[in-house]
């Protein structure tokens, strides 16, 4: 059926609420408002206020309450409106959710799903445009997912709800209106593997989330010049599917990493280091990165566009790596 990313998320939420009485959704404006991105519209009416809970603007308390409810036998889905606000809940996620299993010697599990919107591109300026997936991907004890397709938007949520670890799901804000096909019966998806979204022989573009579409557009343009770019969607940012990355890079012998985060300390840097450690001998060119400029994301359209990875920059980076400027 034809649907949108937003509706795919909603379908996943509805399916989870329908099938597991332990599941409940809470967060800022998820109920009466319908979700800041309208992902939960209609769910309050369908499932009632006990299972679709509007919270105060208390990120630390309601994320912590999600952790506590998970310890107490529930299966909470916490929506933090955006990654920007998740900084107010970092203590709970990093110090509690991620540590409790280990710190308790394996006695506790925190089966909690935290969803949040991420990314820039809508002229929202420096405080509403962060891409901090790599901060979370740095932390042992949590899983980090970045669904970039409709199938993953629905299926990753359902798969995350089958895990007994805390899972953080990043939904890039630019994806919600994206339209596409999704099977009515689409269910949980595999969380362990990166997926080749477009095969190619000459270079691997490693990317995730909101940068996937830009990378696919770049591959399309490059194909017109006879450059076969393979686009690898990481999907899971922690733990990384290093085998999947290496399999593609060993085949193409070249890699460009596209990451909307700032270059310094980025996931792109981590992936480049892993390629160097594991596939250095297979490389025919240095690994390249296309990341955001090192600037708080500015408001003005032309400045914001210049700050973010864009298709022309990806095309240029690939041309440089394959030696065909």
């Amino acid at each position: 059926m034809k649907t949108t990313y937003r509706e795919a998320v909603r379908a996943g939420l509805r399916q989870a609420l329908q099938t597991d009485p332990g599941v409940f959704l809470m967060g800022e404006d998820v109920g009466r408002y319908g979700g800041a991105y309208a992902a939960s519209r209609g769910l309050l009416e369908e499932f009632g206020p006990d299972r679709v809970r509007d919270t105060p603007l208390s990120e630390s308390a309601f994320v912590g309450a999600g952790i506590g409810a998970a310890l107490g036998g529930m299966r909470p889905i916490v929506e933090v409106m955006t990654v920007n606000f998740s900084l107010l809940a970092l203590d709970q996620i990093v110090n509690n959710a991620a540590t409790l299993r280990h710190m308790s010697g394996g006695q506790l599990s925190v089966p909690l799903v935290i969803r949040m919107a991420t990314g820039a591109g809508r002229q929202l300026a420096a405080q509403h445009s962060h891409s901090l997936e790599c901060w979370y991907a740095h932390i042992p004890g949590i899983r980090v997912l970045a669904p970039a397709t409709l199938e993953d938007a629905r299926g990753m949520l359902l798969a995350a709800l089958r895990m007994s670890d805390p899972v953080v799901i990043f939904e890039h804000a630019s994806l919600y209106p994206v339209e596409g096909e999704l099977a009515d019966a689409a269910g949980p998806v595999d969380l362990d593997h990166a997926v080749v979204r477009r095969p190619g022989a000459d270079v691997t573009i490693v990317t995730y989330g909101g940068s996937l579409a830009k990378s696919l557009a770049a591959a399309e343009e490059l194909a017109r010049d006879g450059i076969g770019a393979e686009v690898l969607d990481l999907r899971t940012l922690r733990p990384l599917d290093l085998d999947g990355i290496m399999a593609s890079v060993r085949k193409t012998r070249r890699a460009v990493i596209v990451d909307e985060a700032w270059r310094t300390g980025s996931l792109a840097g981590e992936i480049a280091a892993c390629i160097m450690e594991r596939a250095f001998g297979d490389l025919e060119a240095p690994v390249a990165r296309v990341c955001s400029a090192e600037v708080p994301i500015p408001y003005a359209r032309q400045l914001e566009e210049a700050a973010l990875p864009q298709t022309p920059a990806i095309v240029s980076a690939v041309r440089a790596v394959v030696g065909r400027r």
Partner: protein
Amino acid sequence: MTTAAAPGPALEREPALARLGTMLRIRRFEEKAAELYAAGKIRGFLHLYIGEEAVAAGVMPALTPEDNVVATYREHGQALARGVPAGAIMAEMFGRANGCSRGRGGSMHLFDVSRRFFGGYAIVGGGLPIAVGLALADRLRARPAITACFFGDGAVAEGEFHESLNLAALWRLPVLFLCENNLYAMGTALSRHQSQTDIARKAQAYDVASAAVDGMDVLAVEAAARRAAEAVRRDGRPYLLELRTYRFRAHSMYDPDLYRTKDEIAVWKQRDPIRLLRARLEAEGLLSAETLGQLEAEAEAEVAGAVAEAEAGPLEPVTDLLRDVCASAGT
């Protein structure tokens, strides 16, 4: 809000002796821990409960085994009073595999899920949202239990205190908030970090019932805790009980204790909770030298047994370093 200035409850011998026994167990355990820290057997941060024993010893009898307990990093007393075996706690501080957290937590992170002891939280204020969530789960699962959440006066300055009181009140959740006010947030006196030093009063802003009680009088603590727990069970709403106490030792083993006077400590030691209860029992002819000797001997024996258990405990093999990071493969 009520303030428990009323005369203490009538003295009943058996429960009073039990509380004295609990306080003695905690005191001897903590004294041994300090000794073993000096000997290098225990490392890391060690926060002793000496002086505050009446709080844990008085509160725990108000809870049932089905209730949840969330504690802080100064939680040996709560763990012991809740029934976590002394040997498992001592072994944890020795970093042994038979410790209650398999040597992964140490002094600040004691866990015993079988006793619904949901842990020591070492980021000040960090346990409060967890307690709210445990109570929410109980509410949603129709489990008739309450969640007791210990925290210090320092936590009152954290946003999580205010967020958690508001959320628990808004959602009518059965949380018993227990503020162990020992007058210092590490080295900063309450009057130097709070504009309103009457902590129990803060609950009014969230429409939460509250009371304050002399935290050095174990029987007054128990009576106040029973009233508070009963209110939470009956009304299904949160309650804030402030327990006014004092720690006789430094904040941690690293603390040179330069921020308070010896006189101040000496004055508070006159109100040593063990000494107070003992004097009261003796004045009423309810505590013989023999009984006291027996309680002391039991405490000593328990601590000696705990140390032996810790000494004999195996070390977790380094090959198991990465266990219990995630349930599934990979970290």
